[in-house]
């Protein structure tokens, strides 16, 4: 091989630089989010698995039901009635946006625009 003295160190250097992001971040994975669950209530408006993956769909559905159809009471699968409202419903149990919503949203790098209009609960941080 011609110029193996330059090519082989070159390849090693290239592979090293190319994989830099991988080995420099090794073992430094961001910790999984730990949203703080309410202590006052044990059940949500739907089951936990559904809420984890589909809460945004449910919120959109609620928005249409409340604003456009004036249906403001949610009859959950457990037969309990809930106020269909972020401010007067969700955030009454999930009393902290920082400790609940933001935990996963920050981890996933999403910034929902709910809070541009809806007021978050006042926290004494």
């Amino acid at each position, binding site marked *: 091989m011609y110029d193996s003295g330059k090519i082989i160190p070159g390849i090693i250097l290239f592979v090293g630089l190319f994989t830099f992001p991988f080995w420099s971040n090794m073992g430094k994975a961001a910790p999984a989010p730990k949203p703080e669950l309410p202590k006052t209530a044990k059940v949500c408006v739907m089951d936990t698995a559904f809420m984890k993956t589909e809460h945004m769909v449910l919120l959109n559905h609620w928005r249409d039901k409340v604003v*456009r159809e004036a249906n403001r*009471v949610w009859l959950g699968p457990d037969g309990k009635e809930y106020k269909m409202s972020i401010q007067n419903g969700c955030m009454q149990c999930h009393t902290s946006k920082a400790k609940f919503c933001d935990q996963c949203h920050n981890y996933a790098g999403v910034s929902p625009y709910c809070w541009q209009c809806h*007021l978050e609960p006042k926290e004494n941080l």
Partner: protein
Amino acid sequence: MEKDRRDFLKIGGISVLGLSALPVFEALAQGKDPKAMPDPRALQATQWAIVVDMKKCWEEQEKRQCKDCILACHKVHNVPSIPDAKREIKWIWQEEYKHAFPDQANEYAPEQVKDHPFILLCNHCSNPPCVRVCPTKATWKRAEDGVVMMDFHRCIGCRYCMAGCPFGARSFNWGDPREYLDPQQENPEFPTRRKGVVEKCQFCAERLAVGLQPACVEACKAKALVFGDINDPESEVRKILAENYSLRRKIELGTGPNVYYII
């Protein structure tokens, strides 16, 4: 096992019947699914209306510069007070006779009428032009009770409705309204708006839904504001209108305003 044609048709028929019953079973089974429903306390009407007795209102205005209805409304709905008149947000406000009733403003009207401001708000028209021009259906007239509603989520801020409304009942958020709201004074039960959204009075739809009268009506100590169903001959608003001559704003435009004034 031998099957003749008769047996085959019998079994076939029953099977088809069984299949057609499947959707019925599914529909019945849905009874357990979660669902949204109205609050049983919600107030019902076919067309809400407000009668403003300006004589009572002016008495309170003279006594103590009363603005109770405006303060109450703007407090519960987190309406910011923006000093710049070009950017102000108003759901219920005061206006002079000649501006409120430009079509009938009489130069020689009584001093009391000419000198005292009227209380104006969205007329919740029977034929609302703002609704016709809205390209996104962010504003619409509720078929059940005639409230001209706003869906702030859907408003794209094109301001067609503001051009369409002949009553100036709509305001546009040129900037973030929260800059003009005191966080300590905000009503935590109602949202604010954001930049680029149009807003207006919604006859307190969120209060009607839980059986409460609009905030302005509740706040008026002089009982100058009366709220009720204009299509119900037994309602208080109809009784007042039957006994008093009333005005409505710009009726010649044919929008059918549902706010009545007694002077």
